C-alpha cells in the first residue's frame, strides 16, 4: 500500500510540475531573430511580385520548394509511391476482381455516423488539396485524408457494399491513371505551350524565367492560384486518394475468396 501511495503522489507531483512549467514558461523555445542565408533566399523569393522572374508566386514556402524549386525531385518521390502500389497490385493479381458476395458491416449506429463523417472527411481533404499553395498541406496530405473516408467505409459497410457503389478496383485504377496523366501533363504544360509558340521552356516550369518567357498566370481574377502548383496539387491529390483506395480495397479482400480463386487458377491443390 505504501509503494502505491508513493507512486500516486509522485505522479501528482509530476503533473503539477508539468503544469507549472507549461504555465510559467520554463520550456521557452529559442527563436533566432536573424534569418539564415537559405531562409532569406526562400522568404524573399517564394512570393514576391516585384521580382517575378525569380519568384514562384507561392506563399506557402514548403509547397513552393516541393512543387516549384524541386519539382522533378518530388515527381520521383511520387513515382516511388506508385511503384509500391503497382507492386501490391502485382502481388494480388488474379483476385482483384473477385468481390465478396455479401458483406455485413457494422451496426446501424456506426454506419449512420460513418455516412456523415465520411462526407466531412472528403470535404476537409479537398480543402487541404485546394489550399495547398496557401496553407500547410497539399496534394499528398489531402489525398491521404480522402483515403481515410474509404477506409472508414470499408470497415463500416464492408467491401461488397462498396463494390456495389462502384468504388472498386477498376474505378480506383482508372481515377489513379487519370491523376497520373494530369500530373504529367501539368508538369509539361509550359513546355507544350512553348513548342506551339516556338520559344523555350523547362519541364516543371511555373512562372516565366529569363530565357523561357512562357509561364502560367499566378492569379485569376485576383484569386491566387500559383500557376502549375494548384494543378499539380489537385492531380497529385486525386492520384494519391485513388492509390490509397486501391491499396485498401486490395488488402481487404476476404481470405476464403482469394484462396478459392488462387487454387482454381493453379489447377487444384
Amino acid at each position, binding site marked *: 500500500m505504501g509503494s502505491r501511495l508513493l507512486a500516486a503522489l509522485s505522479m501528482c507531483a509530476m503533473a503539477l510540475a508539468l503544469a507549472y512549467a507549461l504555465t510559467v514558461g520554463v520550456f521557452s523555445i529559442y527563436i533566432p531573430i536573424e534569418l539564415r542565408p537559405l531562409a532569406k533566399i526562400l522568404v524573399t523569393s517564394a512570393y514576391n511580385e516585384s521580382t517575378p522572374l525569380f519568384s514562384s508566386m507561392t506563399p506557402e514556402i514548403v509547397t513552393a520548394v516541393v512543387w516549384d524549386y524541386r519539382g522533378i525531385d518530388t515527381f520521383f518521390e511520387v513515382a516511388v509511391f506508385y511503384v509500391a502500389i503497382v507492386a501490391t497490385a502485382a502481388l494480388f493479381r488474379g483476385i482483384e476482381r473477385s468481390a465478396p458476395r455479401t458483406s455485413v458491416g457494422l451496426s446501424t449506429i*456506426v454506419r449512420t*455516423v*460513418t455516412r*456523415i*463523417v465520411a462526407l*466531412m472527411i472528403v470535404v476537409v481533404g479537398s480543402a487541404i488539396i485546394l489550399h495547398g499553395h496557401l496553407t500547410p498541406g497539399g496534394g499528398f496530405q489531402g489525398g491521404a485524408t480522402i483515403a481515410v473516408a474509404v477506409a472508414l467505409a470499408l470497415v463500416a459497410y464492408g467491401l461488397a457494399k462498396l463494390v456495389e457503389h462502384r468504388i472498386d478496383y477498376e474505378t480506383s485504377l482508372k481515377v489513379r491513371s487519370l491523376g497520373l496523366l494530369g500530373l504529367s501533363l501539368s508538369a509539361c504544360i509550359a513546355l507544350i505551350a512553348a513548342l506551339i509558340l516556338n520559344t523555350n521552356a523547362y519541364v516543371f516550369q511555373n512562372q516565366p524565367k529569363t530565357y523561357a518567357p512562357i509561364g502560367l498566370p499566378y492569379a485569376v481574377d485576383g484569386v491566387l492560384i500559383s500557376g502549375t502548383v494548384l494543378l499539380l496539387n489537385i492531380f497529385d491529390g486525386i492520384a494519391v486518394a485513388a492509390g490509397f483506395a486501391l491499396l485498401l480495397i486490395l488488402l481487404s479482400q476476404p481470405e476464403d475468396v482469394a484462396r478459392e480463386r488462387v487454387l482454381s487458377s493453379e489447377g487444384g491443390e
Partner: protein
Amino acid sequence: MIEGVLMLVGSVLILVGSLFDLLAALGLLRLPDLYTRIHALTMGTIGGAVLPLIGVALVAAGWVELGSYRWYLAGAAIVTAILILMLAPAGSHAIARAAYRARSPSPSYVVIDELAKKVRGGGR
C-alpha cells in the same frame, strides 16, 4: 463585461472537463471489466473533451485581443466538439458490440441478458 463572463464560464468548463478526465482515468484503473471501463472511457471523452472544447470556444470568443481570429478559433472548437460528440459514442458502441459478439466473458453482475436470445438465435 460580456467578455469577462464568457472567459469565466469557459474556464469553469475547462476545469470541470479536467475533473471528468481525472475520474475517467481512475475508472479505467479501478473498474473490473470491459463494459464498465468503456463507460468510464466515454465519460472521459464526452465530459473531458467535448466540454473543455466548448469552454475553449467561449474563452476564445471572449478574448478581444485576438481580433477577428477569435471567431475562427471558436468555430473550429465547436465543430471539433460536435464531431467528437458524434464519433466517440459510435466508437464505444462498436467496441462493445465487437466484444459481445466475440463472446468476451460475461461479467458476474449481469442478471438478465436480452441480447443473447437475439444474437445466438436469429443470427446477425
